[in-house]
Structures are given as structure tokens and as C-alpha cells.
């Protein structure tokens, strides 16, 4: 775009689908190895070596999936909205594609957080679902993802779909902190801490270190799947470009 002269060089490069495709291809093996190592190591640690919680017993081990997926679901939304904004303002195609690739990953992670939470809730609170602040705001985040995905699939023209989705994601982004605080406030008002989530400082190191490993592993895994989706999306949209034709025919 003519009026974005002040953008640094790497930004331009990122904007080139071809460059982006190649750099993703180079990074993918490294991230895959890291993700696998961290996730498998973390899971073994979490399941076998970490001590049981004195209150919740072994059901506590669900935390090693639950918390990373919950954190990732939120980070993913932020990435999606930021990428959407970049696509909207600078008309950068790659950013649109990143935003589009984020939505299904984020939604699946939100599902994982919701399901593991629900499963955890049964032994801990005695019911699959309660209208608790965190649960409710996670459910709403999931709805936001659904909305973004539905809107994207409903619009046929790809550039229009990307723009519309970006607007929605941005509006949702403004709203996420508002939802979080309103829901938390609402809940503490009506239902004074019947069920308090375990607080972080209360955790000994042999419990939270594997958690940290899992969280980092989840980030690596997120990067892997995002890059894979992004590469597909680049290929699909740039199918008329010369370099894609060369690439495909060279194989």
C-alpha cells in the first residue's frame, strides 16, 4: 500500500505470501520436535511423577491439560484479532490468512478447556456444570469463536469474509476484558465463593513446573498447527501465482 512507507522491512517481507510460506516451512520441523518433546515429557511428568493434591487427589492431574488449553484459547483469540486488524488496516493478505487459521484452533482449545473443566467439576464440585464466573466467561469465549467461524464461512468472497471477520474479532476483543470482569463480579455477588479455584501460590514447585512445561508445549503445538494451516491457506489462495505453480509442478 502506498501510504505505509514507514513500515519496517520485515513487515513487507511478512506481507509476501511466498516468503511466509517458505519461512514457515523452515521453522516447522523445529517447532514440531519441540512440541512433541515438551508435550510428551510434560504429560509423563504430570501423570506419573507429580504428587497428588492433598484435597482433590489424582483428579488434580487434569490441571495439566485444563490450564494450558484455557490459556491458549485466550491467547489465540488475541492473535486472531490482532492479525485481523493488521489485515484490515494494511490490507495484508497473510494477516487475513493467519486470522482465518486461528479460529478453528482456538475453538478446539476452548472446547478442550470446557470439557476438561466439566469433567474435573464432577468429582470436585459434584456437578458437570455450574454457572461460575470462569466457566461462563470461557463459554462466552467459545461462542465468540463460533461466531467468527460462522461469519467467515457464510461470506463467499474471501476478502469480504476476512474483513468482516476482522471487524467482529476486534469488537469481541474489546469486549473480552469487560466480559471477564462483569462475569466475575456478578458471580462473586450472587454466589459467594462456594467453589474457589485452587490458587496458584498454593502450589508446590513439583506441581507447577510440569504445568509450565505443558504450557510452553501447548504454545509450541499451537505454532505448529497454525503454521500448517497457514501454509495450506497460502497455497489455496495463491494458487494462480507463478511460484505456487512452480512449486507444485517441481514435485
Amino acid at each position: 500500500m502506498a501510504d505505509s512507507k514507514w513500515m519496517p522491512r520485515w513487515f513487507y517481507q511478512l506481507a509476501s505470501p511466498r516468503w511466509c510460506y517458505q519461512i514457515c516451512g523452515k521453522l516447522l520441523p523445529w517447532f514440531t520436535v519441540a512440541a512433541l518433546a515438551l508435550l510428551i515429557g510434560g504429560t509423563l511428568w504430570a501423570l506419573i511423577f507429580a504428587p497428588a493434591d492433598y484435597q482433590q487427589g489424582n483428579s488434580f492431574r487434569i490441571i495439566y491439560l485444563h490450564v494450558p488449553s484455557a490459556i491458549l484459547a485466550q491467547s489465540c483469540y488475541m492473535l486472531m484479532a490482532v492479525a485481523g486488524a493488521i489485515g484490515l488496516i494494511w490490507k495484508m493478505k497473510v494477516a487475513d490468512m493467519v486470522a482465518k487459521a486461528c479460529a478453528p484452533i482456538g475453538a478446539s482449545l476452548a472446547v478442550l478447556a470446557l470439557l476438561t473443566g466439566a469433567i474435573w467439576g464432577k468429582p470436585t464440585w459434584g456437578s458437570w456444570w455450574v454457572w461460575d464466573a470462569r466457566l461462563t466467561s470461557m463459554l462466552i469465549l467459545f461462542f465468540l469463536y463460533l461466531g467468527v467461524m460462522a461469519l467467515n464461512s457464510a461470506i463467499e468472497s474471501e476478502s469480504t469474509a476476512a474483513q468482516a471477520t476482522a471487524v467482529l474479532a476486534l469488537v469481541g476483543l474489546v469486549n473480552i476484558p469487560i466480559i471477564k470482569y462483569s462475569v466475575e463480579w456478578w458471580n462473586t455477588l450472587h454466589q459467594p465463593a462456594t467453589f474457589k479455584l485452587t490458587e496458584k501460590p498454593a502450589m508446590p514447585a513439583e506441581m507447577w513446573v510440569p504445568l509450565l512445561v505443558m504450557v510452553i508445549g501447548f504454545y509450541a503445538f499451537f505454532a505448529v498447527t497454525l503454521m500448517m494451516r497457514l501454509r495450506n491457506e497460502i497455497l489455496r489462495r495463491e494458487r494462480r501465482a507463478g511460484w505456487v505453480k512452480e512449486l507444485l509442478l517441481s514435485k
Partner: protein
Amino acid sequence: MSFNSFSEFLSMGGHGLYVWLSYGLGVIIILGNLIAPLQAGKRLRAQLTRRLIRESKGS
């Protein structure tokens, strides 16, 4: 090592169902997120290559 035997490990102190259900779901979702783009990518490449070959023959 916080378990003394394998059966103890499986039962997770009575919470086996919940723990294994969660981890099962976790594995499914992680693998799904890896397999889905892999397969979509394969299909897409095959489809695009086929079209390219068709077009280059056609012209």
C-alpha cells in the same frame, strides 16, 4: 513416582475415569489439530497439481 503399581496408576485413586477421559480428549484434540491440516494440505496439493496438469495439457 507417585504410584506404586500400574493398576493404581490406572485407577488414579478412584478418579481414573475423569483423568483418563480428560487426557483422552486432550490427545484427540491435539492429534485432530495436527492431522486435519496435514490431510487438508495433501488433498489441496493433489487437487491443485491435478488442475495444473490438466490446464497445461489443455493449452
